[in-house]
Every structure is written in C-alpha cells, then in structure tokens.
C-alpha cells in the first residue's frame, strides 16, 4: 500500500505482522504505552523548565525588571522553525503508528463470525447468520473474530466494549461496523457511549465468550427452536 510506503521514514512501527497482534485490544494497549512514553518526555521537559524558571527568576527587588533576550532575526526564526519541525516529527511519528494500528481495527479477518446489531432505545438486538436473535446478550465462540454490522432503529447509540477497546456509533439510516477478538471464555461488559436519552446509562449488555463446542451446541439448539417456531402447524 502506498500509504505505508510514504510513512516508511517514520514507521519503524508496531510489529503488526505477527498473527497474535492482529487484535484491536492488543494493538491499542501497545500504542497507548507508546503514547505515554512520548508525552511523559514532553511533560517532564516543559514542567521542569517552568519550575526551574519560577525558582531561579523570582523577583529579588521591588523595582527590578526582567532582562529577557532580544532575539536576533536568525535566533527568532530558529526558535520558531526548529521546535516546529521537532513537533511535526513527533506528530508524524505518532500518526504513522496510529495508522498501522488503524488497519488492524478496520481490516477484519476473513475467518469471522458476522452478527447484525440493531440498537434501539434502550436495548441491543442481535441477529446471527442463521436467523437466531438475542437481546443485550451476545454469545460468541472463543478464538474467532467477531464482526458486528450495526444500525439503529431510532437515535444515535454507540456500542462500546471496554475490555476489547472498541466502539463505533450505530445510527439510523447508516450501517457501521466494528470487530473484536474474543480469545478465551468469559464475560465482558457492553455499554452505550453516545447520549441517547433517559436510560442511556442503563443500556447495559454483555458479551459471553463460550468455548467453541459449547457455543456450537447453543447455536444449534437456538436454531432448532427457531425452526420449530417457524414450522407451520400440520
């Protein structure tokens, strides 16, 4: 991809080739650590400088005045251009890392479970490929990427899985998507992140990650129930 090439100068980026890193939650945590180191350096430099100036240059006589340097033209340009390039270098570096991680977030593995999500005030309705539906609880097999295709039946909501570090708005008239990688069995919180009225904070859902065989059993059983319900009485 040409974008990748353009950033090559800066992107000694995340080792995203590794298969275990094709997971939004993991690249998020790596990128966050990267960010923390980056800004900690900037913070320490500025804060230490400010503290030192405050201590060193406090007023010693009531009618004392400062003697700040009168910059020459060259020094003035230098003090603008050099910091500007330093900041830009850091910006592009962070942008390149973010771009790499972005591809992990937006390029969904082909081997995936695809579920439809319709948000409404105030619930999450899921529809599985075989027509099985559920509300608020999303059951998925461990070890398989899950793609949600989302829309909304009324106002804007945002499906947020803090443990998987993903969210995307669901809106009426538009279809959006997100994917996450449930690796091992367990339960995870889902909650609404876009203000949607009275019960916004109570739009609580759950992702239940089951061992694959247990999921398969549940999935078959629900499909059978659905078929039974649909079968015309004879």
């Amino acid at each position, binding site marked *: 991809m040409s974008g990748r090439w353009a950033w090559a100068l800066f992107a000694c980026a995340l080792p995203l080739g590794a298969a275990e890193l094709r997971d*939004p939650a993991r*690249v*998020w945590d790596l*990128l966050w650590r990267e960010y923390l180191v*980056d*800004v900690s350096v900037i913070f320490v430099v*500025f*804060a230490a400088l*400010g503290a030192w*100036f*405050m201590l060193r*240059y406090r*007023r010693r006589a009531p*009618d*004392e*005045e*400062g*003697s*700040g*340097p*009168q*910059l020459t033209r060259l020094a*003035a340009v230098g*003090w*603008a251009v050099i910091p*500007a390039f330093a900041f*830009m270098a850091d*910006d592009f570096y*962070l*942008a390149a890392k*973010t771009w790499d991680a*972005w591809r992990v977030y937006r390029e969904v593995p082909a081997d995936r479970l695809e579920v439809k999500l319709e948000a409404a005030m105030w619930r999450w309705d899921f529809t599985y490929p075989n027509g099985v539906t559920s509300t608020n609880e999303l059951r998925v097999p461990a070890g398989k990427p899950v793609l949600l295709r989302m829309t909304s039946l*009324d*106002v*804007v909501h*945002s499906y*947020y899985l*803090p*443990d998987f*570090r*993903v*969210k995307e*708005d669901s*809106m*009426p*008239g*538009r*279809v*959006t998507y997100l994917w996450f990688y449930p690796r091992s069995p367990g339960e995870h919180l889902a*909650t*609404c*992140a*876009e*203000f949607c*009225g*009275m019960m*916004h*904070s*109570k739009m*609580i859902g759950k992702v239940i990650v089951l061992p694959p065989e247990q999921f398969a059993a549940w999935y078959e059983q629900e499909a059978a129930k659905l078929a039974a319900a649909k079968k015309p009485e004879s």
Partner: protein
Amino acid sequence: MAFSFKEWIFTTDHKRVGVLYLIGSLAAFAVAGVMSLLMRYELHAPGPDLTANPNDYNVWLYFHGAAMILGFQIPALTGFLANYCVPLMIGARDVAFPRLNALSVWLFFAGIVMALATFVVPDAPDIMWTGYPPYSIRTTGNTAFYTFTVLLIGFSSILGGINFLTTVVYLRAPGMGWNQLNIFVWSICAAFVIQLIFVPVLGVAVTMLAFDKYLGTHFFNPANGGDVLIYQNLFWFYSHPAVYVILLPFIGITFEIIATFARNRVFNYKAAVYGGIGGVLLLSGEVWVHHLYTAGVPDWLRLGQMVSTLLISVPVGLLMISLLGTLYRGSISFRTPMLYALAVNFTFLIGGLTGIPLAMATLDLNLSDTYFVPGHFHYVMAVSGTFAIFGAIYYLFPKMTGRMYSEPLGWTGFIFTFAGINLVFFPMMIAGLYGMPRRYFDFEQFPEVAPLQALMSVGAAVILVGALITLWSWIHGLLKGAPAPANPWGSRSLEWTVPSPPPPGNFARIPAIAPDWHPYAYGRPRSGAASA
C-alpha cells in the same frame, strides 16, 4: 461617582459594556457551577442519590455544558476582556461602533435569559450542549430554547466580531504598528475572525434542528432522505473552532499577565503571534472530524484529519515556548493573577498532552465518549480558560474598581481551586481509562470507578470552597480595598497609563506611539508612548 442604574443600562462605554458582560457571564458561571455540584453529588456513589429521575440529571448536564461555553467562557473572554482591554491597549477612546456594542451585550443577556428559561419551562431541554439529532428532535424536551439561546448569543458574537476587527484596524493610536500590538489584541482579532466564519454554520445547524422538530422538515431524518451526520458535521465545523475562540483569548491574556508579573519581554513575540495565533487560526477549520472518529465516516477523512489535528501541536507548542520563555531571565512576582497565569501553563500542558491520544484516531476508538474526554477538555479549555479569566479579573481589578483586592484572600482562593480541579479532572481521565462513558446518570456497571467518583465529588466541594473565597475576595476588595494607583503592577502596556478606573474616553490625550515603543519593552528606559 454616584451610582446610576440608568447610566449602566443605556451605557455605550466599552468599559461598562465589558463589566456588564462580566456580570452576565459570572452569573452564568455560578448557575452552571451549581449544576456541576448537583451532578457531582448525584455521582458520588452508585445508584440514585439526589434524584431518581435520569432526566433531571440530563437537564443539569445540558445546562452546565451550554451555559459554561456559550454563557460564560466565550462572553467572558470575547465580551468582557475584549471590551475592557482592547480599546485601552490600542490607545482608543472606545470601540468603533459603541451602540452596536451595547446591542451585543443586551443580545447576550437575552441569550442568558433564554438559557435560564431551562429551569422554568415544562419539559426542559435535555439534549446536551451538542444537541445531536435524532434524539434532540424526538425528545419531549424543549429543543427550541437551545436553538434560540445559540442564535441570540451567536448574533451577539457576530456583531462583536465586526466591531472589534474594525476597532483594531482603524482606531489604533497614531504610530502603533501591527508588531506593537499586545498579544491579547492579536488573540481577540483571531478569535473574532473564527467567530465570523464559523458562527453562521452553527446558526444554520440549530435552525435546521428546530425546523425538523417543529415544522416537520427532514434534514436529519434518514427515513425521509435526511442524514444524521449532516448535523454532527455542521455542529463540529463550528464547535471545534469555538474551542479556539476560547483558547486564543485565554492564552492572550495569560501572556499579558505573565509578561507583567515577570516584567519581561515576551519571548519570540513574532513566533507567538504569526506562528502560534496565526497557525491555530489556519488549522482551526480543518480538524472537526476528530469529533466523529467513531461515527463511521470514511477512513481517509478520519486519518487525514488525525494528521491535521496532531499538527495543532505546532502552533500550540510555539505559544507554550513563548509563555515559558517569557519567564526566562524575568523578575517574577507571585501575585494572585500570576498564580492563575502560571496555573494555566500547567493545566494547559496537561490538557494539551492528553489531547494527543484523542487525536490519534485508533486510541480514540476506545477513549471517545468516555470520562477521558471531559477530563481532557476540562483541563485544556474549561479550567485553563476559567483560570485565565479569574487571573484576568484579579489583574484588572485595580483598574476596573480603583481598589486593590486582598492578596491573602486571593492566594487562599487560588490554592483551594487549584487543588480542587486536579482532584476532579485527573481522576476523571483515569475513570475514562476504565471505560466509564460520559453523560451517565449512574454507573452500576462500573463498580471499580466508585472510589474515583467519590474523589471527584470531594474535589468539586474543594472547588466550591475556593470559588466562594474568590468571590469573597472580590466583594471584600470592592468594598474595603485600598485605593489603587494607575499602574500597581509596573506594567509597560498602555492600559496602565490611564487612571484607575479610567474616565469616559479613557485618555486625556491620545498617546502618540514611537517606533521603538513596545507593550513588553521591559528592562530598558521607558520611551515612546506619551504618558498622558
């Protein structure tokens, strides 16, 4: 001078108009502050505390956001400070259009009254200060009050923009060149250019909202060919630049305070003005999509505006270097205004650095709409802006009232406020990292953030104590303060050459500005500006 109510109502004097703006914006600040205390009480523990109705909470939150931004910060900075300082700083007798100025301030008051109607109308607006449709159209709340508040204050701002840009262009004292302007004057010019370009866009957005809700149009209704994202784009196309309408003047006044109390020339003045203020102005309209990172807009748009958003660090970094550099080899006096100005450097640094992960689109997919976001923007805009305004009130107190405030009271108020805001907004960002979304009435699904919520509520109480002491220090200074000289701080800037308080018309004789005069020419003999 006998107090005449009528003189204040019909005044066209820029200093009185400024004080009227100050009174109105502090009233908005007080009511919006009470709302935040109600919210902090509600959130101090899980479950319903103060009210069992989430709608009450939503109304408080709506009012807090809308009033703090539209009713307090923008009017306090571009109304009060611009009116009070700009004509004095450029050596003018008044603004270019004094009667238009009076219209601006009364439109602003009408806007405040419209906002306060929230508390008396049935079905108060509950749509957050962003007013996203379709919720703002479906709700039973009175979205119209939001629309008309925005329109009234928006008109007020547009008139102010025309007025102040004209004033600075035409009414500078004879001989005053563009490179001899106070940085605050530059920042006000830039802020009003932004207002003139972008306020109409917000006006359009909220008007379409009202049309959709009350007249049955379908701008934002996908069932009839509309699109919900049009509103979000229009709203943030104004509302992100609006952040700079707040940022630039508060940085500008921070420059004034720092230069005065360090008695030092501003470090690299031209880099701060052309690189810093000019750079922010240039980039301000190209970054709004970072508010829509999770809204499913095309990838190229999200990544493109990620880069432009990160680049904001360049002009902002230049401003920070100039601010810090002004301390270098200065003669720093730690009076109350200076404490606030130095605190702005600190809170703005934290706020700026915590903005970076929100600019990094991928990190934002997790952090967006969590407590991290309000934590960040309170540091970078709400607290920094408010500290700059408080610092400016102390700074101008002798000039406005002709009396000195009490330094110990000022210090005490500052210490409480500074401690309080860090107790509220740093834990808020940590709660965001736990995944706690914003605008939540309750947080039963996040038991792990309960201690942080309790801490934030304690912090809010500490801020209240600080704010009350600060208010008392102003009242005390107003009633009992020692008489103030014309130039208590030893500043070189023009506004300190006139008596405290300045008479109508400001200058007995308009000062003639010498080519080597500069508002920050400390450390060398006074020259140039005739001290009339």
